[in-house]
């Protein structure tokens, strides 16, 4: 299990606010579970659509993606296109 800092795109106001938090997770799936445990309110945001940025790469759908050690991880809104 890898420890990492997760930052929130400042629009997510969850509990402690927009400061980065420390989480243990090896994949996006584990990350979401860990965050939901700490911030149950996050479920509404997940339902509306979130994406995860790992070292600048944006992942919207594949929650099996592994999160490498020391990755820069951001939770951002899910982007749609036209």
């Amino acid at each position, binding site marked *: 299990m890898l420890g990492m800092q997760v930052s*929130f795109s400042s*629009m997510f106001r969850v509990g402690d606010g927009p400061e980065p938090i420390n989480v243990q997770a090896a994949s996006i799936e584990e990350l979401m579970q860990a965050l939901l445990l700490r911030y149950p309110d996050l479920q509404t945001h997940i339902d509306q659509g979130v994406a995860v*940025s790992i070292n*600048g790469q*944006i992942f919207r759908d594949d929650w099996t993606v592994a999160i490498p050690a020391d990755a820069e991880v*951001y939770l*951002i809104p899910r982007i749609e*296109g*036209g």
Partner: protein
Amino acid sequence: MTHDNSYVEKDYKVVGSRVKRPDGVDKVTGKARYGADVSAPGGLVGRVLRSPHPHAQILKINTAKAEKLPGVKAIITSADLPDLTDGDQGMAHILENCMARGRALYDGHAVAAVAAVDEQTAAKALKLIDVKYKKLPHVTDVDEAMQPDAPVLHENMFTRGVEPAPTKPSNISARTQMGYGDVDAGFAEADVIVERSYKTEQTHQGYIEPHACLASVNPDGTAELWVTTQGHFTFRNVCSKLLGLEIAKLKVTSSEIGGGFGGKTHVWAEPVALALSRKANRPVKLVMSRDEVFRASGPTSSTSIDIKMGARKDGTITAAVAEMRYQGGAFPGTWAMLGCMTAFACYSIKNNRSIGWDVVVNRPKVAAYRAPSAPMAAFAVESTIDVIAKEIGMSAIDVRLKNVAREGTQAPYGPTYGPIGIENTLEAVKSHPHMRAKLKKNQGRGVACGFWFNIGGQTCVDLNIGIDGTVNLNVGTVDVGGARSSMAMIAAEELGIAYDDVKANIGDTASLGHNDTTEGSRGTFSSGMATIFAARDAIGVLKQRAATMWGIPLDDVEWQGGEAIATGDMHSNLPALTLKEIAAKSGRTGGPIAGHNEVVADGAGMGFASHICDVEVDPETGRSQIVRYTVVQDAGKAIHPDYVEGQFQGAAAQGIGWALNEEYIYGDDGRLQNAGFLDYRIPVCSDMPFIDTKILEVPNPNHPYGIRGVGETSIVPPLGAVGNAIADATGVRMTHAPMSPPRVLSALDARDAG
């Protein structure tokens, strides 16, 4: 089999050339079939009754007279579309948008629908439906809707993202804030501070083909839908949910699509057609008129934006703040939030903040339009940067280069950029011959940048090799502009065969797994990736068959240039086996040869562009003519350069229309005044010059060929580029788009009055 999606540099044999597209002949001969081009035996004509009021309670709908009209086979209202959305608010809004539930929320909102034996009967039936409305006060302007005394659309809308949470309902669905740094400190450092407010009017994607579908529902719960769509799998999911059908039993076939640009990513008429067919027990063809498309599909937001920007004399932007108000139509959307993500994305600004207000008004439910929310924000930001440039006496390009975002820059929405191409596009613009073209009297030049995310998403591809060695590629991502040729090129490249030996086809929902909608510039990126992997899959099988045919171990077989080669000391004297030879024997070596791939293509690269616009402003009429236009955009890797150029040019033309002429005009009565192509004027052939294009290729590290999505980005710069060109030509800074002749003339008059 898992595949590696990392970029690998290589020499291409097919990719990058300009081949003929496979669906071209059907389209130039009129054979290609679009949404309205099919009929079914016993089919009925569907028509929709729409509210003439922008906001009203629906007291009663009396369909008795209409039902008695001979030839009417079914009439539906919301009573025939029970709410099966199970607490999913997004779905509930889609349902209510497709058919009003007790209240009409915009001029054009569907209230009832009819299926009849022919067009005339359906039209007569609509007139016989008696609807009793109680008119309510309405609001159509985004700023007015935010006022405390504005008529409220949803009594349960309490603005999210505001602390403390409001106790009174309003039309503001959410407040968003993004950015980083200390903007106050940043402004304190600035030598020059500029504040401007901007407004952009609502526009429509303007696809020439109206929404159209043919729905056929059977009493046993099976159904078929032929529809013009950007995403037949998504339509299947949504329609199944709304109608209570099982996904595998609803077969959706994508017709050829006559333009979408984001406007055909959602359902409007389709659940209605299915509900009519279910009630009538006959196929129903439902085609929207052009008037209905404008009034009742999904245009963009209109906006109201304030920018404050501070810079030092050396050109460094020390702080920037954007406050943006976007209307999402009658139902809440996240358009302002998207605007916040893109507003400053082209630049590295140490202290930046974007605040977005998402607002509802009595207008149709907003849908995505090519780089949704970005063009409006870019209009405001790119215009303001030019004002700053003028104040400090620096060139427009140099100010942008001074502050340009690079690999390692933190995006306004948080994460750090990987390799991106905006600096390359600006350098290319700086040295482009367009910049040296001589400007005549009343002419001016403007430059602007734009950004759009590209997305990946779920994709599924089947590759089947015929016994003559020709290949069928079954793709699930709708082809909106020519991607079938790119997919065939990629398959040919991977397999090492001729482009002409590959035929790409868009499969229906029964023949493939889920594919996400073609949006977010994901078509070529995702389908391309899946095609590469499916081809590599097939190559694995081909090698296996060659090994069998030779009777040698698989390890001694390689695939090169379209052939299996035996390697190693023992077998390298064996003559190579071509794909055709292996395919011919496939029946006896294990059966049909195929490759398959399901992938969630992620890691799509960002697309950046810089544009140059020369405009001539007629001082007597205020009319602006585009004299010269150049698009420079980073495509990562251009699979088929003609179609990449086509995306650049088409997007730029839409942006130019948005900048100069296109707007929704609502009257005081809350009704759309210009629901047709005469008065909603999109660019025509004589409005445009040739559009020069330059494709840059900064490879996307997360795609085997380095592909970045290209479709959307170039609609973003034109509003700013045109505004900057008009300012250069006239000395007048336009802050209200479209910069139509009356607005420009009025600004010129104000300038001359001093």
